[in-house]
């Protein structure tokens, strides 16, 4: 940390975090095309290679629900009350648009990397 600048590993961590943040929203929306509760959602994301801690996931789910992209419902399963989330119709539309955007960015990046 010389002259107020941050070191290489720290820059990389910050950039990785920024990159992950956007991807995580798409991943969560994609996973919630089928109904799930928090714990199973987190496991499903981890199984697909996207580890996310509870402290990030639950506030994100709440934010997405406030934005109208998700709907949730408390329901009993295995003798315990669980909050199940799924994509709302608006969320479904937004997810499709985000996936299109994602593919377009991905294609652009691939083109750029091939040129290099």
């Amino acid at each position: 940390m010389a002259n107020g600048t941050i070191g290489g590993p720290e820059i990389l961590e910050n950039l990785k975090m920024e990159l992950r943040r956007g991807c995580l929203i798409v991943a969560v929306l994609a996973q919630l095309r089928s109904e799930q509760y928090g714990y199973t959602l987190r496991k499903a994301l981890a199984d697909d290679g996207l580890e996310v801690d509870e402290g990030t996931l639950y506030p994100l789910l709440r934010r997405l629900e406030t934005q109208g992209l998700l709907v949730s419902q408390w329901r009993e399963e295995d003798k315990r009350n669980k909050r199940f989330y799924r994509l709302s119709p608006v969320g479904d539309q937004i997810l499709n648009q985000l996936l299109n955007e994602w593919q377009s960015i991905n294609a652009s990046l691939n083109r750029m990397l091939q040129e290099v």
Partner: protein
Amino acid sequence: MALLDSYLSAVKRCLPRKHRTDIAAELREDLLSQMEARQEELGRPLTDAEQYAVFMQHGDPMVVARRYWPNRRSLSLGWELIGPELFPAYLFVLGLNLAITLAVIPLVNVIYHAPITVQPFVLPVAAQIVCVTAVFILLNLVRLKFPQQWIYPPAELASVIPVQRWYSVSGLVACSVLMLWWLAIPYLPYLVLGPSAGELKLAPVWHRYYVPVLLLFLAGMGQRALIVVRPDWNWLLPTSRTVISGIGAVVMFFFRAHPLVVVDASAKNLEHAEKLARSTNAWMGWGLFGPWLWLYLGIGALFYAWYSLPHLRRLLHAGLDRIRPVHELNGVL
């Protein structure tokens, strides 16, 4: 479930009021699922230490709760002085202190028939702001340095966590300094009387209370020294402090009820010395040994009594040997 409830109640306290119950219920469900998964893995119920490890991994209650707040305010001056996790507590404590100060000063003025002006407020208000801010900046630094450590975890959880050494060592140093000061008073009365030492002397009440206070200091030092050596004796901290602070509150209550200084017979100007004795008794009775001291000790005793309860409950249920699963935490912390 007592540990889980204790952890969740600590998180709940810091959550936005409107969604508190809902968020806590969801976190509870997630933690229960995690604990069940771990139980299945091990093929047996989790010990207290293993449950605690789940909470540690989940995060400090304040940090967990703050993620649910839309506006994360903090105090920064180029760099972060008080982080968003501590900022609400800082505002609360500062607000409470200022409210008490602003209520007490006019009351004292009314009692002593003094006119209410701005001047008596300036110093106490400035001192409150500086002291509370400094304490919270320090706490913020500690939190940054030891992000996984809780200074005051909830009582149930505290009963399974070893006492942190830095906490006992800093207490031991502070207690030693205060005890040295107390020990030196009979030989160097100006440590209390200041420049008035030539005209005033300590009142007889000091002789009556000197040894009991010294014993309390010794007990406090002994307790801290023992915990430095045996941090896993976490029951010793709240139980001994309940007793020490409780006795301290009673001793200080009666100590300050008497005049603390009297005129020294060798004083040249007796009239002046009497006036000085009156004003010194007033500032000592309301300042150095003011009601804040026995109130602080009394509240401390209640606080530590609350932290003693889980130990007492376990002692009643299972005997002293089984109240210390903290050895198991050596690999976790």
